[in-house]
């Protein structure tokens, strides 16, 4: 048995979601503004609450357990908040510098391996051993990498064999862009279908989805005809 709270959540959820989709109508809409502002408010509140919770669990609880070093972190965090003070805003520069330095250290140490060395080593593949399919894959990888890299030679005149290689590399890039576009479309479609599924499974939710679609579309078209769309949309 579905309770009233669940029905309310689905009804409000579908209406706000469809209001968000109303941006596809191509004109400013008060329904879109309502949904957008609601989301911003919700997301901001949620972020603040969970981050305070994180500070409590990771910082305060451990300090109470005797890990006094974390007091230093809390102090640095408090200094970061000084950014909002017009006179003492410079105090925030110290924790920002520490965060930047730590971040550089953390990521540089590892990105060199994951983003560079391991990618190069993955390109060095056997070209004369293995099955037919493997050989085709491996040759494709090596040839494509060489052609594409020549496209990015900027300090040498592109003519002759080098020019042809660069031109071919350019075409390979276009093919890759096409593949990425197709994957992007698939991903976006997945997001929409996933959203629609969350309001079509189980079956009892479907009428709320369809009713919200019809209601929002009718409201938008009515307001458009009556010249109310821009009038009722709050300014940024």
């Amino acid at each position: 048995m579905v309770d009233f709270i669940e029905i309310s959540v689905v009804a409000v959820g579908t209406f706000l979601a469809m209001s968000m989709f109303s941006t596809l109508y191509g004109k400013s809409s008060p329904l879109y503004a309502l949904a957008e502002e609601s989301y911003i408010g919700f997301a901001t509140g949620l972020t603040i609450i969970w981050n305070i919770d994180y500070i409590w669990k990771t910082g305060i609880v451990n300090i109470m357990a005797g890990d006094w070093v974390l007091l230093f972190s809390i102090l640095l965090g408090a200094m970061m908040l000084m950014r909002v003070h017009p006179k003492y805003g410079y105090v925030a520069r110290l924790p920002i510098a520490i965060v930047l330095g730590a971040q550089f250290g953390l990521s540089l140490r590892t990105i060199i391996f994951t983003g560079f060395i391991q990618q190069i080593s993955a390109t060095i593949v056997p070209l004369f051993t293995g099955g037919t399919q493997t050989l085709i894959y491996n040759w494709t990888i090596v040839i494509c990498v060489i052609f594409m890299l020549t496209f990015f030679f900027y300090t040498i005149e592109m003519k002759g064999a080098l020019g042809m290689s660069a031109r071919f590399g350019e075409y390979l890039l276009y093919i890759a862009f096409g593949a990425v576009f197709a994957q992007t479309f698939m991903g976006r479609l997945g997001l929409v279908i996933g959203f629609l599924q969350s309001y079509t499974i189980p079956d009892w939710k479907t009428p709320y989805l369809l009713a919200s679609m019809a209601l929002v579309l009718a409201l938008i078209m009515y307001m458009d005809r009556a010249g109310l769309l821009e009038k009722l949309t709050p300014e940024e």
Partner: protein
Amino acid sequence: MMMAKDSGGILKWMAEYDRRYVYLVLFLVMVGPLLRPIGMPISVSPDTVQYYNVLQQVQPGDKVFFTLNTEFSGYNEIQSGIIATMRVLVEKHARIAFGVAHVEATVIPELIVKAVQAEMTANDYQYGRDYIILGYIFPNEAAVAAGAQDFHGVVTQDWLGRPIAGTFLDEIDDWEDWDLIADFTTGIATSFLINHYALRGTPMIMNCIGIMIASEKPYVDSGVLLGLLQSMRGGAELEFLIGRPGPGLTAMDGFSFGHYALIIFILIGNVGYFGYTRQQQMRVDREAK
């Protein structure tokens, strides 16, 4: 891009039709099959088989870090992969810790547990002993890096503030103690997990959203990731492999029709654009003579 003077006709309409028709048609071709699934056949890609094989190697009692690097919108796209993976892990009697990298995802572990409740009950899963929800524990790279070196230094409580001491997480000290990381991602803290866990040697698999496939696939080729499940399509393939239809397989009809619709729109737009441009050019040439 269009010529100034024209006489209309079908080519003009094809070149300039209102884009809202595209949205409307896409919406309809996706909603229809969701309400009345047709059950079109799908094939299983080698990447999904590779991911599935990694899951099959999970042993009873293995400690799996189930990380959700996703907002709620992204969860909708990869939920089929998440639930199918969870089903396999539960049936393998793995011990599972849920960690979250986005505040919106804090409620997702509960949804996952609810979705596989039948399997968890059948396998006598108990909170703390067999699974635990840690909540929002990855706000930034520093937190991920610290957790990889001293887990209990940064995580002391579960998402509801209950101490994790006494749970199976007592066996976790650092990155080496995890048997597998199953990461479900829209890209938030995934690179941190790769850098501080997978690179050191923790086995890691990933289910990512569609737009991340091209950027994450090289990590599989270079051996950093053991498997990559691609978007909702990968989730559907995994559901097919484990013989448990779910949201992924249900969505595949809409997915296919959506792609067909896009191809048709691309064809219409291109035929219209080139045809109409040529028509206008011919008219200009005629008038010049």
